[in-house]
């Protein structure tokens, strides 16, 4: 072994180890969340890269499908938008049952508020608006569940501070279920009921485990987004605006 090389190597090794073992004192100086808005500069290169994609999407998205009487927001425990979408789900499920000559037992619908990602704006509604409300590719699913599972669902709704429902009204004392009525009647734990919801919730999403093991489960071949678009177009064909209100479907005392 060349002695010079060896000394150089040991020297480097000591230097390396000394350097690696050094712990530098860290000081956190400051932190902030910087708002990005119209006052922020725009990178033109990035704009140019987005442009062809934007043009493609705009062509598809800017079609006006109807009008809304007001801005519909989704909020817990009950809100105009969650009521509107829950109604759409219920209508679609009822239409499916009639079309397939199935039992006309009550149909409750359930839509998670977290799944409604944007409001329906006041005035003209475009396809884009509905993509923003419902960006997910979720489908409507029809489930048959015994009354006790439906009761578990409503008990859970008390702790999750509400979600979108149609076909039922429910009252809580704090988080505790006081009363729930389906079609103005109390739930019979042994009777079967239909629940229409998204495939996401039917698979136990958003902690809805109690509806996972339905004896009957069928996709009605309709995406949630398509159902909302269809409802708005139907209203528009009849010269009606979209409208929905908080009606006391879910009451927390």
């Amino acid at each position, binding site marked *: 072994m060349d002695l010079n090389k060896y000394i150089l190597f040991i020297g480097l090794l000591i*230097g390396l180890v000394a350097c690696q073992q050094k712990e*530098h*004192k860290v000081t*956190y100086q*400051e932190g902030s969340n910087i708002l990005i*808005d119209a006052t922020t500069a725009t*990178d033109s290169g990035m704009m140019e890269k987005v442009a062809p994609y934007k043009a493609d999407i705009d062509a598809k998205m800017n079609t006006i499908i109807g009008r809304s009487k007001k801005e519909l927001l989704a909020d817990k425990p009950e809100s105009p938008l969650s009521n509107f979408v829950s109604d759409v789900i219920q209508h679609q499920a009822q239409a499916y049952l009639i079309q397939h000559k199935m039992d006309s037992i009550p149909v409750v619908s359930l839509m998670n508020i977290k799944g409604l990602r944007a*409001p329906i704006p006041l005035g003209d509604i475009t396809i884009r608006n509905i*993509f923003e409300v419902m*960006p997910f590719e979720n489908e409507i699913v029809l489930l048959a569940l015994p009354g006790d599972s439906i009761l578990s669902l409503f008990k859970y709704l008390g702790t999750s501070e509400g979600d979108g429902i149609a076909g039922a009204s429910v009252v809580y004392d704090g988080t505790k279920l006081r009363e729930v009525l389906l079609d103005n009647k109390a739930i019979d734990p042994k009777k079967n009921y239909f629940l229409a919801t998204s495939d996401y919730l039917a698979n136990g999403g958003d902690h809805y485990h109690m509806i996972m093991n339905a004896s009957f489960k069928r996709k009605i071949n309709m995406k949630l987004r398509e159902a909302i678009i269809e409802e708005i177009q139907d209203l528009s064909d009849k010269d009606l605006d979209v409208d929905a209100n908080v009606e006391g479907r879910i009451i927390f005392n």
Partner: protein
Amino acid sequence: MINNRRKFLKTIAFGSAAGMLTIPSCKVGNGGKVKVTILHTNDVHSHIEPFPDNHAKYPGQGGFARRFALIKQVRREEEHVLLLDSGDIFQGTPYFNFYKGELDIKLMGEMGYDAGTIGNHEFDNGIDELANQISKSNFPFLCSNYKLNNSALDGLTQPYKIFKKGPIKIGVIGLGIQLNGLVTPVNYKGVDCLDPVVEGEKVAQYLKEKEKCNLVIALSHLGYEYKQDYFSDIKTAKNTKYIDVLLGGHTHTFLDQPTILNNKEGNAVIVNQTGWGGINLGRLDFTFDTSDTSGNLAFNAQL
């Protein structure tokens, strides 16, 4: 025996070539202060364009082109910048419906993101599609608590990455949320979600003790804090001692400024989250005093 020693020396000699580069920069750093700026986002949810001007909550806010201009400005002003994302890149605008996340990841690559982690919405088109998109990414996805070797993501993520900024070593890990109950089971087939506190701490300890990282940052999609006893950033911060910074996501939490709290040894941890939709760019500035060897995360007196 002699052969073995020769082989050993040869290996080290190769290593020392890299060492020659390290030592001078180490010496230059002695006695000086090195500033590192961390920029970060979370839950951008495919908001490539700004929110529309008539949006009820965030009129005209966000947008990739503006964010990139801001990032470029910081890079002009600061020598050492890290750009990180805490997941839920996907889902929320038609850009995702039509391009399946490919455009988001491509543009983030062009902005020079250094690393990201996987949020629950990354699984929305199924794990095979996520694997397809990640395989095209030019920045790494970090997952420290997902066991992925039986899944389509096997080999496509890494448990940590170390970034060298001058003489400073910054270790970055990724903490993923429990997918059960959030994602349709078939969409995350083969993913085993392990305890983020235990696994995160393990990797962070390795980065601190073995890799001698000066700072460990967790990109987290656990969520800021819950009423229920779920894993969260606050819970992780309080129950670990090797993680210095948690850059969070999932709960779309807007913080006026980063939260500072104590870890289980009473040392400071910083938790930040930028809301969602690319409305804010998070920024944290650290200085590393290269003459001081105490190593603990300390705070500026102004705070």
